[in-house]
């Protein structure tokens, strides 16, 4: 924002602004378009630079290879399982905690809040956490990818402020006078009112579970338990395509070609679920980011 730019007439500003936003959007979107097109183009056309926007010499060979790859199916199945289980556990721990903390006059509430908040500022770090997981005998189990990172201070505090704002204290008092227990109030009053926060927190956690690779990499050793991201890492990052389709032995040249094609197809296959879902639940993500940014 230069000093003399204040002189720009509004019309000119709008034109320039619209144009720049358009360019930025193009830059953001282009890599996706490229990958989609490359995934159904002839690998030669892609590697020689002939294909740069729309598909050239359409072929679905890459997808065929991806779907014929057992690892992808195993990874997909595991990822779905870990994501659903992890998200369910996340909510089961998060919601009761946040609700209880949102209630007024709970003894020791200040202390418990500090207990939660402190974990945000300081952590033992990678190695001590790894040792805990190891000493609990959780290595190479489902629990090693679902329990560490189960719930964080941020989500607890955000959900707590949601409950504070959306479950009226008077309603709770009336229910208590009528003899309802706190369990009952949580189940029958608080939970039905908290659908938006359940959606927000569930989606946030679900996305991070889906995309997570590091925990699985350090805790899991059995390939049968690998989530999708670890197989993706082998294919995309360390360039190792384990050919398990069997049968036809391809020439080296042929192999290099398919390896490239598999990469594009696998990016699409693994990212598509989230990319297709998020526009429909975008408002929840936006809400979540917002509740989280409101300073108390």
């Amino acid at each position: 924002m230069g000093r003399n730019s204040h002189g720009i007439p509004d019309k000119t500003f709008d034109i320039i602004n619209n144009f720049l936003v358009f360019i930025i959007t193009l830059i953001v979107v282009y890599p996706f378009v490229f990958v989609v097109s490359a995934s159904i183009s002839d690998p030669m056309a892609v590697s020689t630079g002939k294909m740069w926007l729309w598909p050239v010499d359409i072929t679905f060979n890459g997808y065929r290879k991806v779907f014929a790859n057992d690892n992808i199916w195993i990874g997909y199945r595991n990822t779905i399982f870990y994501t659903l289980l992890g998200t369910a556990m996340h909510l089961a721990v998060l919601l009761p905690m946040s609700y209880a903390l949102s209630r007024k006059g709970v003894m020791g509430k200040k202390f418990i809040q500090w207990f939660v908040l402190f974990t945000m500022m300081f952590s033992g770090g990678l190695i001590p956490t790894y040792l805990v997981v190891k000493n609990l005998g959780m290595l190479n189990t489902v629990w090693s990818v679902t329990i560490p990172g189960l719930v964080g201070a941020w989500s607890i505090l955000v959900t707590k402020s949601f409950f504070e704002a959306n479950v009226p204290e008077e309603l709770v008092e009336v229910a208590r006078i009528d003899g309802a227990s706190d369990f009952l109030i949580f189940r029958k009053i608080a939970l039905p009112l908290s659908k938006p926060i359940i959606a927000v927190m569930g989606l946030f956690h679900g996305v991070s579970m889906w995309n997570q690779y590091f925990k699985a990499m350090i805790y899991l050793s059995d390939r049968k338990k690998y989530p999708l991201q670890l197989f993706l890492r082998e294919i995309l990052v360390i360039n190792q395509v384990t050919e398990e389709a069997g049968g036809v032995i391809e020439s080296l040249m042929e192999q290099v070609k398919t390896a490239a094609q598999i990469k594009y197809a696998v990016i699409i296959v693994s990212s598509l679920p989230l990319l297709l879902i998020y526009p429909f639940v975008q408002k929840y993500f936006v809400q979540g980011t917002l509740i989280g940014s409101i300073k108390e």
Partner: protein
Amino acid sequence: MVVEQNASKWQEFKKGFVKNWQLYVLMLPAITYLFIFCYIPMYGVQIAFKDFYANLGIIKSPWIGLEHFRRFFRSYYFGRLLKNTVMLSGYGLLLFPLSIIFALMLHELKNEKYKKTVQTLTYAPHFISTVVLVGMIKIFLDYPDGLFNHVAVALGRKPTSFLTDPQWFRHIYVWSGKWKSLGWGTIVYLAALSGVNPELIEAAKIDGATTMQRIRYINIPTIWPTVVVLFILQIGNFMSVGFEKVLLLQNNLNAETADVIQTFVYRTGLLQGQFDFAAAVGLFDSVVNIILLVSFNYFARRTSEHSLW
């Protein structure tokens, strides 16, 4: 007297606890989790000061004081790791304003439909996993067949092996991160901007303020508190960088710029099994983060009245 008072306090405590016992039960799972997976590791970080033997366990392993820290600070790697970490984070901080600027630009779009479409499209990269992001980087920067090299050749330059050249690592890391977070990062600012008092804008228009002036004197001051808070939060993670991404982008050839403290912790600790030494290096990192967070927060509170606490 005192005894009586204590007794009544104890009674009160008991009463409060009994009255709300179900609420404590509701808290129990989360508290147990935090205790085991956050507080026990904090306790376990003492191995940074010990000669750790797995068979002796954390408690019985002998103390050796600051030996691991000394070894780290004196090692050949220390200077390089610190420099790389600081450069990478610092470079990221330089680009911090981009999302703010983009949010200010989006806010000025008159066509709501266009604005919504741009938002949805630019949020998309946020949902891509780190592995896929790095995979895409490798595809686009491939030597010699990637798109960037095709463009370079078309412009009459020589193809570059971006991914193995230490000179390129920081640019690749930081700009790919910006690509992923640019759109998503605008959400918070756009929300703050929607809170601008419409009367203020009308008044400014009547007084003949140009769009640029409105942005400068109304919009930017409106989002300023949000900017400060997010900036402090980012400073609080200064030493952590996006190490999961660095790890994937790293190779033997670019390590000169791509090796950062956290990847060093991973390598020495989990790959080479030097738990005690790696824990010490990790602790150094956390402590620097806390110091940065606290001091920047103090600085912000002193200078701008906006701060985290």
